[in-house]
């Protein structure tokens, strides 16, 4: 049934374990369970895999696409899909149109579509008929209908049903009834497909052994877990996509992992009335001696600006996860970007500079989860962690996380005995590193108390409008920021011998860049790369730029924010800093990066263009 009139062209490479799949459905129809089942089944088969949910700002009805990339080489960047599951009437024509010749489509036969693709392998599936015998009714029946494409794909792509079952078990946390209900639909569709469909396309998966030691989780889960192991004791937040699932994960882990010996909770999670209150609670909690964090996104940090400045100036520790979405303003609330870098770096009026950590993987989300809390207390300042929607909300493979290698770093906090012994003045720079000693409320030693404030103050925390006091304090804060350079995570470098050009980037663009660099290298065009993992800049960043004739800063924003920071910090090197900056809300593809890097690697091509 439904066989193509002519034979679609062949794709000129081996596509086994090397293709991209997109599932087009409507938001709120329960398709996420089905999508994740395919994803986890491939992971269970040992095949490198990654999923990206491209979803609307909506509860129900608007189109949503789930991209799964299967890659025997371990590439996880977004790639235009060759395989389509078309389950959404509103987008079916567009979805069919985007497939490349030789691609494949599984289409709900109940959908009307005007686009006909003779150059694509099309398999209509009678979803309604397949569900006709289901005993389930209403919403559950609609949800389960998605499992029909799982069954059909399992047959067409050759995914063993036991891998599907394992994936469902992981999905439902072992709730057997749910597993069985879903599996029954999968089996039914699988049986139908085996009997009725003749496979004409080349797409298939085959077991590998590349995921044995890996975990599959979202960046928000990894960051939350890292924070739990970092000893977070106060989390204050206000709901905002795409950071909400960070706090959801935190609230999932804490009750299980963070009980004292007597069974008491060793943390508090507070849903604040807005982001101003959320960060206000952090500044208070950090001052009081708790390890405090929030998770938010761009509009949230806009509201947090004033308190971020107070945290910097009164020198209280806190951690702010900004899971970036697309701004300005409400922007594209469910799309990814890297547009908050410059704003977060200097958040607050006046001369404010913040420590910003830049994770790119779930391993780094975990590590920065605990490390950010250490840094905040060591440096007595707000620390930002800039994740993004793509990293935070999507499932990524990663090495099993490494347990923190150092004990909790609580910074320069004086005990009552220490105050008695050596005295105390809050803002005297005894060690010359700009980091001064503090005491916590409740410290009973005479002279331990001080009055923290956002106004000008002396080294003894007394209000002052004296010019000399102001300069002394702000110069010390600048000195502290210099100290921070050696405290923050080092950049990750891959130098290609003899390369003239280096790429500088941060965060999740690394995957498209890595794939593009491999492709370029196979064409004889090599370039080095430096992946920044924090601001302020460490010394190796300057070394890297100096070692190359040209560096190209690749980032997902319009104005080239990192490029601007680098040019401002290294004015002498500015002429060799080029910018590739683009933002449309979608993660970069390797082919985009390849195309944009090419002119820098082949100057002749640039002149011709």
């Amino acid at each position, binding site marked *: 049934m439904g066989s193509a009139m002519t034979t679609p062209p062949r794709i000129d490479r081996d596509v086994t374990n090397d293709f991209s799949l997109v599932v087009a459905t409507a938001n709120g129809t329960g398709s996420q369970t089905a999508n994740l089942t395919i994803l986890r089944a491939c992971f269970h088969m040992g095949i490198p895999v990654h999923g990206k949910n491209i979803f609307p700002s909506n509860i129900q009805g608007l189109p949503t696409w789930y991209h799964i990339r299967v890659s025997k080489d371990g590439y996880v960047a977004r790639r235009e899909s060759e395989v389509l599951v078309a389950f959404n009437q509103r987008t079916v024509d567009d979805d069919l149109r985007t497939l490349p010749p030789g691609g494949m489509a599984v289409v709900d036969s109940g959908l009307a579509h005007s686009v006909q693709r003779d150059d694509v392998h099309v398999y209509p599936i009678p979803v309604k008929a397949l569900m006709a015998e289901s005993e389930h009714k209403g919403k559950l029946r609609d949800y389960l209908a998605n499992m029909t494409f799982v069954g059909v794909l399992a047959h067409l792509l050759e995914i063993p049903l036991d891998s599907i079952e394992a994936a469902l078990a992981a999905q439902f946390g072992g709730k057997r009834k749910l597993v069985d209900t879903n599996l029954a639909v999968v089996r039914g569709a699988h049986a139908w497909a085996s009997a009725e469909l003749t496979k004409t396309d080349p797409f298939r998966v085959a077991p590998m052994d590349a995921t044995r030691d890996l975990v*599959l989780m979202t960046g928000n889960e990894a960051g939350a877990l890292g924070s739990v192991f970092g000893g977070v004791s*106060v989390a204050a937040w206000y709901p905002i996509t795409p950071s909400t699932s960070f706090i959801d994960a935190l609230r999932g882990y804490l009750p299980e992992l963070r009980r004292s010996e007597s069974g008491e909770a*060793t*943390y508090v999670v507070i849903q604040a009335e807005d982001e101003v209150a959320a960060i*206000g609670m952090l500044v208070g909690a950090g001052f009081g001696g708790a390890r405090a964090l929030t998770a938010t996104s761009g509009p949230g940090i806009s509201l947090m600006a004033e*308190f971020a400045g107070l945290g910097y100036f009164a020198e209280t520790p806190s951690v702010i996860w900004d899971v970036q979405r697309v701004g300005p303003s409400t922007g594209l609330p469910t799309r990814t970007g890297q547009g908050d870098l410059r704003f977060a770096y200097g958040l607050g009026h006046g001369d404010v500079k913040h420590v910003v950590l830049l994770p790119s993987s779930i391993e780094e989300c975990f590590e920065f989860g605990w490390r950010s809390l250490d840094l905040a207390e060591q440096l007595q300042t707000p620390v930002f962690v800039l994740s993004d929607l793509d990293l935070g909300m999507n499932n990524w493979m990663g090495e099993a*996380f490494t347990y923190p290698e150092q004990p909790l770093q609580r910074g320069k906090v004086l005990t009552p005995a220490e105050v008695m012994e050596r005295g105390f003045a809050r803002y005297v720079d005894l060690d010359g590193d700009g980091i001064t000693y503090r005491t916590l409320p409740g410290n009973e030693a005479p002279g331990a*108390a001080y009055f923290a404030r956002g106004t000008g103050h002396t080294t003894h925390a007394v209000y002052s409008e004296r010019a000399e006091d102001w300069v002394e304090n702000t110069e010390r804060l600048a000195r502290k920021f210099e100290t921070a350079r050696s405290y923050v995570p080092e950049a990750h470098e891959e130098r290609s011998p003899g390369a003239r050009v280096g790429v500088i980037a941060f965060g999740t663009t690394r995957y498209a860049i890595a794939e593009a660099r491999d492709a370029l290298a196979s064409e004889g065009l090599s370039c080095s790369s430096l992946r920044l993992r924090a601001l302020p800049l460490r010394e190796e960043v300057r070394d890297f730029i100096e070692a190359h004739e040209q560096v190209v800063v690749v980032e997902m924003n319009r104005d080239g924010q990192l490029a601007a920071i680098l040019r401002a910090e290294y004015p002498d090197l500015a002429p060799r800093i080029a910018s590739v900056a683009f933002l449309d809300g979608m993660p970069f593809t390797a082919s985009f990066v390849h195309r944009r890097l090419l002119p820098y690697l082949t100057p002749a091509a640039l002149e011709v263009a």
Partner: protein
Amino acid sequence: MDRPRTIASNAIGLSRADYGGSPSTLCKGCGHNSIASQIVQVAFELSLKPHQVLKFSGIGCSSKSPAYFLGMSHGFNALHGRMPALGTGALIANHTIRGIGVSGDGDTGSIGLGQYKHLLRRNVRMVYVIENNGVYGLTKGQFSATADEGLELKYAGQNTLPPIDLCQEAIAAGCGFVARSFAGDAKQVRELLKAAFSHRGTAVLDIISPCVAFNNEDDSPKSYAYGKHHEKPLHELGFIPPAEEIVIGETEPGELTLVSLHDGSRLKLRRIEEGHDPTDRAAAMSRLIEAERRQEFITGLLYYDAKRPSFSETSHLPDTPLALLPESDLRPPPEALERTLQRYR
């Protein structure tokens, strides 16, 4: 009724001077100074341990005053209108510390109204003093949200908007300790402060505190002269510490009410003209609305209810303050990480 004031030191061996702060930089005669000195007196009389008190403020004249009392206590001068959030965080980090915040009518009634209401809704255990003068001082005389309707001021002209009544707002938000007082009535301020320190959650003291620079004309309802002539206390207050015997002389029926406070202390309310039952929420609200209509300046404990648990109680905090938990309580062991990751393999 007053405890003797002549003693040089209190139960923990501190003198009144030990509870003092830096010299005030507010105007001479400012109501806020007299409130600061009552806070000093009360802390001394209650023998509060300075290291177990944490001071907060927002921004404005009022918010400067925590520098002028309890110099041996930690404090944090926060942002304009944002004292509640900062105080909440600090008192969650260490819930064994008593908080006292000083705010103003602009800080609480305008920019910080949202945080004020949410603080009360959470019932964070702290004494929340509003030094209410109806006017912005540091910016030289604009109306605040509590300025009386029809008030004429040199800088601001005529106020055409009705005032926000911060006591009504407090009762509506679920606050269990709502009092109004007058900076010129030192004794009442003192007794209310003592009772406020005994409260389970947030205790609001809305104290009319005249601004001698911008809003002290005799006909202004927030002036000294007006307060002196028009203050109408609902009752005479006497704070009784937990261990103290109560000595009550001859009373008429209904003349005396004893309110049991959360920590075992009591507040004695001696009726003056009318009977006001501070445990009746609806009556408290309607008495305030009535006062507004009749342009009465009523003072005293308007509403009291200690049934609602405080935020630290509902947050299920451990006995040891979060700030003092050892690493063994803050970082789970390596096996816990391995076990958790198993689910994601």
